[in-house]
């Protein structure tokens, strides 16, 4: 008797459907994950990646379909069920107790912890795990002393300690420097060689290409599952969006001229009076996009807040179009024509319960152009909203539908529409493409480059270094509140940027304008 070659399947999803109201977030999804493979889930925003992983981890109950784990139908009613079976998940936002040690965080909540912690036994187990996966971490340090990358290792160790055989990583590199990402991938491949399976959710091509197989989702359906080795980045992207994506590049025939924003020696305190900005200086000219590269949490947010007038500089200051700005308020900055795209769009940029129409005039609700006597001109708002919804391709049921019901990408389009409508001269964009897929990101970049062409000065902070390199005239790197250097894309590499982002004092040739 001839035995067929059996590839050992750890997880098999058959015809899984999950609906939210009329929308099918997952529509008949089938997929299998083999033992010892890195399997990537790839797709645009709203393609159904997160919903699928939430079903696999027991957050959502699928409406129909079947999940088979290790040959048995899995009843996943809660994450606890998933953990018991051996499915672990590491979220984008870590769930760690910051004043507990690494070891305590790993073992907290595990079933073999009784009333008294048996730490020595647990320690032996964790040390063994670390060795297996090649993770080098001090188990007695407290979480708050760790870098973001190390915190992520703790999350991974926690899942493995709980006996996970399948680990789901939800956009794990969103908060990491390129070097940290490389380390993470070394750890992941170490885990693979121990026979663990990994589901990697990502929309970064570079990461996708490091997986064994990739399942591409589009609009809730599986488009294809391909062996990564036998495919190309272009082919996979084309499968994801269903068409070819043009990558925008800045127009080099337009050259920056005449400083518009001049920031001089700005220092600022954070919410706990810690120093968050130290002696920050830079200029942005008209027709110029200045990139701001850095790992999240190194002072970018506070820099934008200072420039927007919502955080006071403790010393130093800035001028706009030659005019010194003294003790600014957000009102003054808006009135001076500054457009602002905040990184936390639902918290800082939108009124979640308001519809697109009302959000389009947030900050301008008292402007005469939107009023009729003492009243807001609803009709005018409606007309404006319909125009902008079309122009910015916002997917919404109506101009009145609360924006909290829009996807992240569509919510971002509402903000962009508002800022591009009202800004004159300076555009401040903090992580405008965070969480957006390739096509949506390109749309944002296209709009930003349009403003550059129109003579705007643009400050663009992003974690997508490849994008900064092709879009920006110059790139400033920020680390722990200090500008480590300002470089030109054509004279710098990804590696250089990564080194500077990690605080390497060995700066590449510093270009001064």
């Amino acid at each position: 008797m001839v035995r067929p070659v059996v590839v050992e399947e750890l997880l098999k999803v058959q015809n899984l459907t999950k609906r939210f109201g009329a929308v099918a977030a997952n529509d008949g999804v089938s997929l299998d994950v083999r033992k010892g493979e890195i399997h990537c889930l790839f797709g645009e925003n709203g393609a159904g990646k997160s919903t699928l992983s939430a079903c696999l981890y027991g957050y959502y109950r699928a409406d129909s379909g079947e999940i088979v784990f290790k040959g048995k139908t899995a009843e996943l009613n809660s994450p606890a069920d998933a953990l018991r079976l051996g499915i672990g998940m590491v979220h984008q936002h870590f769930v760690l107790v910051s004043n507990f040690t690494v070891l305590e965080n790993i073992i907290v909540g595990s079933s073999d912890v009784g009333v008294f912690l048996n730490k020595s036994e647990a320690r032996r187990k964790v040390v063994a795990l670390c060795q297996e996966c090649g993770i080098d971490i001090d188990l007695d340090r407290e979480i708050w002393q760790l870098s973001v990358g190390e915190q992520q290792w703790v999350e991974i160790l926690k899942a493995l300690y709980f006996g996970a055989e399948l680990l789901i990583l939800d956009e794990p590199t969103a908060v990491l420097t390129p070097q940290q990402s490389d380390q993470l991938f070394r750890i992941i491949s170490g885990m693979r060689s121990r026979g663990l399976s990994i589901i990697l959710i990502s929309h970064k091509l570079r990461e996708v290409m490091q997986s064994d197989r990739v399942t591409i989702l589009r609009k809730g359906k599986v488009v294809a599952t391909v062996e990564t080795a036998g495919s190309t980045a272009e082919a996979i992207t084309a499968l994801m969006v269903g068409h070819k994506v043009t990558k925008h590049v800045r127009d080099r025939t337009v050259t920056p001229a005449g400083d518009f924003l001049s920031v001089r020696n700005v220092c600022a305190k954070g919410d706990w009076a810690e120093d968050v900005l130290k002696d920050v200086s830079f200029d942005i000219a008209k027709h110029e996009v200045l990139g701001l590269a850095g790992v999240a949490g190194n002072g970018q947010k506070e820099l934008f807040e200072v420039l927007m007038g919502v955080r006071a500089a403790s010393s130093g200051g800035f001028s706009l179009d030659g005019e010194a700005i003294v003790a600014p308020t957000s009102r003054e900055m808006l009135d001076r024509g500054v457009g602002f795209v905040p990184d936390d769009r639902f918290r800082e940029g939108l009124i979640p319960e308001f519809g697109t129409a009302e959000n389009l005039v947030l900050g301008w609700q008292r402007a005469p152009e939107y009023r009729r006597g003492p009243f807001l001109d609803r009709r005018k708002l409606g007309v404006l909203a319909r125009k902008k919804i079309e122009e910015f391709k916002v997917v919404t049921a109506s101009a009145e539908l609360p924006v909290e019901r829009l996807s992240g990408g569509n919510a971002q389009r509402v903000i962009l529409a508002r800022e591009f409508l009202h800004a004159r001269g300076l555009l401040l964009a903090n992580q405008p493409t965070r969480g957006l897929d390739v096509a949506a990101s390109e749309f944002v970049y296209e709009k930003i480059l349009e403003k550059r062409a129109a003579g705007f000065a643009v400050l663009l902070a992003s974690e997508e270094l490849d994008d900064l390199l092709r879009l920006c005239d110059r790139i400033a790197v920020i680390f722990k509140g200090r500008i480590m250097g300002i470089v030109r894309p054509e004279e710098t590499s990804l590696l250089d940027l990564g080194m500077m982002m990690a605080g390497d004092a060995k700066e590449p040739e510093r270009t001064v304008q």
Partner: protein
Amino acid sequence: MISVQRRSGSSLSWNVACYSAAMICAFLTSAALLAFSGGDPAKAFSALLTGAFGSQNALYGSLAKATPLLLVGLGTVIAFRAKIWNIGQEGQVFAGAMAAYWMSLWVAPLPYWLAWLLIAIAGLVGGGVLGLLAGYLKVRFGTSEVISTVMLNYIVIYILAYLLDGGPWMESGLTVAYHQSSPVNPLLEWPILLGQGSGKMHIGFILALAAAAFCAVLLEKTSLGYEIRAFGSNPTALRFRGTNIRRLLLVVMLLSGALAGLAGAGELFGTSHRLRAETLLGIGSSGIVVAMVGGLRPSGVMLAALFFGALKSGAIYMRLKSGTPAGLVSAMEGLVLLFFLCAAVATKLQLVRVEEKVHA
């Protein structure tokens, strides 16, 4: 299997069903409560209805009772829509009545319309200033308005106690035991529009209706209303977008307190004609209930105020006729609130039939 899910839109028929169910539940539990306390529910309810709607005068009496509830309810709506938890309406009602009373001691020589206007303004200012004080404490020191407004209630009520019990406003020629002021100058009483005897509806009702229209327009049509609603949804974004949210908070507390203060002034000059704590107690807290039952919308508050006004007015008759204890009426008010809040949650849900999973 039936599962409960969040509803994506809202449906009128489902809303009506939910609130009708809430009414029926409140009615049934109230009846049970009446029966338990030894009363005859049928008799009590019929007395309640007669007292509320049985005659023209009863009807006017219900409208009079609804007047302060509507004003306080509207003030509550303004604050709660901004998610500013002003729950100091009791004190603001008192402050409004006290300020109006104080004003009435000075304005008698003036033409009636001017005196009337000054008294009404004093009521607005009295309540408004008290609200503003709580707002200032929040803006300046970060004091929670929940704590400060409630604490201010006590302060104001004890100031009134001082003024009436041996203080300058004690009714002349009487002992402390009455805890009341002399009657207000009859020339300054607010005009009675309808009714006589026990059921009189004063001009405050018209003011309250006007205030309802004002609040509806303010919230839905003006830039300030936009900011109030935006503050309730996301104050951070509003601050990032150029609005001075401290000033906005002060404005909201001022407006909210002023409406409660006007209720106090109206109650004093339209109904009781004597400054006395008992006639004012409970208006503030009932007004909050009215705002919640009315779904924090001026139109809803109007309906709720009429309902609770009728309940309060009918309750007096019910107590006389069927001997039900006074506390039961407050209990019924509480039950209505409870079931309406449940209904408000239920309107956001829907029941969906889910197919059973078949396991191999």
